[in-house]
């Protein structure tokens, strides 16, 4: 074999050198592998626990199990808010199917333009891939069938079931109930909103939903699930804590009265409260225009939100509790009480009204040009004579008015169990000095005596005052739930005064300014009012004032006159005279109330829980 000869090494002097170098190389290999083994030992045995924990952190993701929110029922037990399963059509973004073609095919089925779907899809960029894009919430069976029948054309489309807050009555009960939404960043960081809130929680945003959120919300559950490197859930999870459903809740509202009230308002803008004067339970609370809380149930669309926000009539604003208005002549009830109690006027004292009077050097007009002639307290209230009350106010002064106004809680929130209750203004010398840096002039009192000027109350406050008058001195704490009920506060006012006022208020409806509020077979007591538009410059948030060019119409009272079981206040913005616009609204609700009471279809003793 000659090829072997070619490679034969002739000189063996380096034989030892090679042997040594092979040995060193062998040692090098051993050192290297031992070094690696020590590394493995260090990572796996010495620091194994730390890495095991890191691997668990990688793998396990905490998944929040949302609780089922409690059901809300009206006082007759009818469901007004519930959580129901809803089907969402979603587009998964992990799979490889051509999204564009699918969106193009979906557009006509969903009735949404392709460009809009595309834009929404683009907006998902940057979100984790496992998060699907919601194509349509609460999808109909019709659409579902059309998608399913061409399943192979939509590889990325899936149907997911979610819990959705549902308000079967739509915009009818929206102001008492409020709505829900994802907890806001501000709410999370304030900390004061109750512990245990986490990002993504659904919480009440207004009304009872917010006021009783702690009760309704329930408790989040927690599940640990395995996720892969893309964050997608793999396999079954381990439930750490089950979600606890929220408690069910009854509200004091009577759905029939509420519906009647909202219908009676029609296209008018305003607010109204109807309550049981003995307990303060609110039977109906309306504010128009209203909004549909279902729109908020699963992330309101930008278009709807904008239309609500840009509506100058502010549908989200609860006028029954959050708007304040000059009370107009309804305030004369309070002035009469203050006059009688302070002794500034007496029931039999008569004043001559010829249509106007001069006080402190200026001419003050009565609304009736020809004047009322000789009027005593009862006639003055029934026919709302301004001249009588100018003079009464002049005699008693602002401090007496303030004292009795405060007693009836005017100009202050009374702790309603839903958020958003506004205060208002019940003026005094001290208040004016503080708010305006100016002393109280006697002339200011003259305007206040007929419910104008520096004076602002909410429909809720006026209804509460009427409840106090109707019950002859026990002022209830109005509320929408029976939870945490409080006993009415007793007013230090004589029964004789209430007798006089009640007689006069019954006259208002039978022969006075509110004859349109008469309900056949029942006596209604009340007082109309016309709130003049006026400008406030200090002491009050200008935003909260409702701008107006026409006077606001008031009607407030209670019924039946001799044994009141319902007290109310109705305001119609720019409604002109209270007798013409506000009284008929009250009449419709009162009529429904009495019909229900007679047929026994409503339970008015206590609200059901």
């Amino acid at each position: 074999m000659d090829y072997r000869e070619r490679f034969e090494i002739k000189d063996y002097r380096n034989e030892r050198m090679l042997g040594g170098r092979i040995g060193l190389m062998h040692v090098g290999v051993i050192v290297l592998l031992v070094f690696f083994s020590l590394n493995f030992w260090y990572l796996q045995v010495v620091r194994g626990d730390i890495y095991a924990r890191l691997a668990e952190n990688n793998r396990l993701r905490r998944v929040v199990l949302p609780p089922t929110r409690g059901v809300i029922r009206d006082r007759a037990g009818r469901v007004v808010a519930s959580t129901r399963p809803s089907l969402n059509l979603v587009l998964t973004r992990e799979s490889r199917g051509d999204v564009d073609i699918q969106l193009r095919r979906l557009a006509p089925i969903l009735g949404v333009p392709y460009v809009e779907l595309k834009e929404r899809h683009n907006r998902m960029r940057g979100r984790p891939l496992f998060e699907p894009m919601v194509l349509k919430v609460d999808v109909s069976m019709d659409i579902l069938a059309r998608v399913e029948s061409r399943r192979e054309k939509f590889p990325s489309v899936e149907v997911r079931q979610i819990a959705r807050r549902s308000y079967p009555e739509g915009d009818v009960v929206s102001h008492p109930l409020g709505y829900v939404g994802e907890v806001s960043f501000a709410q999370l960081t304030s900390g004061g909103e109750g512990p245990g809130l986490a990002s993504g929680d659904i919480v009440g945003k207004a009304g009872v939903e917010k006021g009783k959120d702690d009760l309704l919300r329930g408790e989040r559950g927690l599940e640990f699930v395995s996720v892969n490197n893309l964050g997608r859930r793999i396999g079954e999870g381990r439930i750490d804590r089950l979600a606890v459903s929220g408690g069910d809740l009854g509200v004091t509202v009577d759905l029939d009265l509420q519906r009647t009230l909202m219908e009676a308002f029609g296209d008018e803008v305003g607010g109204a409260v109807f309550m049981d004067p003995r307990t303060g339970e609110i039977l109906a609370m309306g504010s128009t225009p209203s909004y549909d809380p279902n729109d908020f149930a699963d992330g309101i669309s930008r278009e709807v939100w904008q239309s609500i926000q840009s509506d100058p009539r502010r549908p989200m604003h609860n006028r029954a509790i959050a708007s304040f208005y000059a009370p107009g002549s309804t305030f004369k009830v309070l002035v009469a009480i203050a006059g009688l109690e302070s002794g500034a006027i007496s029931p039999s004292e008569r004043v001559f009204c010829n249509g106007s009077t001069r006080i402190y050097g200026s001419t003050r007009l009565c609304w009736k040009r020809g004047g009322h002639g000789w009027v005593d307290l009862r006639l003055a209230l029934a026919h709302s004579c301004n001249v009588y009350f100018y003079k009464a106010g002049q005699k008693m002064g602002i401090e007496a008015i303030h004292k009795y106004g405060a007693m009836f809680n005017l100009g202050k929130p009374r702790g309603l169990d839903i958020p958003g209750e506004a205060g208002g203004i019940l003026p005094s010398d001290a208040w004016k000095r503080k708010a305006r840096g100016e002393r109280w002039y006697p002339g200011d009192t003259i305007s206040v005596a007929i419910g104008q000027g520096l004076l602002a109350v909410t429909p809720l406050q006026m209804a509460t005052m009427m409840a106090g008058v109707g019950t002859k001195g026990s002022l209830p704490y109005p509320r929408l739930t029976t939870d945490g009920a409080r006993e009415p506060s007793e007013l230090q006012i004589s029964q004789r005064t209430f007798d006089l006022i009640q007689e006069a208020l019954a006259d208002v409806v039978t022969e006075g300014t509110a004859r349109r509020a008469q309900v056949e077979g029942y006596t209604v007591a009340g007082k109309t009012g016309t709130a003049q538009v006026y400008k406030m410059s200090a002491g009050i948030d200008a935003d909260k004032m409702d701008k107006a060019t026409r006077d606001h119409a008031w009607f407030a009272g209670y019924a039946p006159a001799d044994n009141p079981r319902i007290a109310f206040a109705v305001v119609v913005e720019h409604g002109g005279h209270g007798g013409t616009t506000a009284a008929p609204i009250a009449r419709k609700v009162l009529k429904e109330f009495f019909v229900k009471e007679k047929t026994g279809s409503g339970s008015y003793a206590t609200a059901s829980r």
Partner: protein
Amino acid sequence: MRRLLDSLDTPTIFAVMSLAGIGILAIASSTAKQPGRDDLWKMQLIWILIASVAAVVVVLVDYHVWAGIGMLLHGAVVALLVLVLFYGREIGGNKSWLVFGPLRLQPSELAKWTTCLVVAGYLAHRHKETLGLREILELGVLVGVPMGLIVLQPDYGTALIFVPIFLAAIWLGGLRWKVITAVLVIGLALAPVVWTQLKPYQQNRILTVFDQERDPSGVGYQVRQSKIAIGSGGLTGKGLFGGTQSQLNYLPAQHTDFILAVIAEELGFLGGAGVLGLFYFLMFRGFAAARTAQDRLGTYLCLLVVSWITGQVAINVGMVLGLLPTIGVPLPLLSYGGSALVAVICGIGLVVNVRTRRFVN
């Protein structure tokens, strides 16, 4: 023929088959939950069969014959490496594949095998016993040409394997200690200068080796996930198919370059160190074959194959442990990949070849 079979190196073959078998299990485990990849272990099994057939051919033909046609084969492989630059298929950023119908070939893997052949031939064939500049340069050409072509692909990981082969060649060829010392001293002195010449991302890549928290999502992410996989395996591991890091896809390139992390996670320290032990056994057999070879050619062949496989193991394990920057180097015999498997098994085939013919007839 009969004697050939009698003197076959069964322990070596057993070690190779054990490592390849562990590799199959690890590939099956790490791809079990990856749609479209869960059949890769079967592919690997087929490649093992192909490699075994090739290895039989390598063993049957006397290694002197292989060395005799070494330059021819090396030239052919270099030609393929040139070809791949123009007609190669790009996969994973490297234009390193030649595609013939269903067969995909990586000439760069074959180049390691032919390089060992020609370098051993050169060392055994040379006329001088010392290693002068001329010899170093000639060795440099033999190793450098395929390496340079592979750098052009650019597949730095594969190219890097030629460095230990070259170092082993000059070491075994008798490079003087004086020169070795001088190079080491100059190298250490120049290191800071080289450092300043590196681009920031290159510096970052090296720094990440020392401090994995530098960039947990970028460069360090792979290494971090690899270390978590290894460390969480503990002493005995989470069980085959039970590794969370691998089953849930946190490990990058888990069936190829990071296969050892999968083994360490699922089989623990015992698995990881066991694989290293099997590799040591393989190297040990290589050294033994080198010492008992009938001639220098056989000795050089065995030792060059040992340096190749050791170098590749060192770079891969160093990377998986986070001691070296992340470069794409597969773990011999275990990582998924046909060409690499065939090349390594044929390399070991040369060692078996030398051992089988240790007695001069």
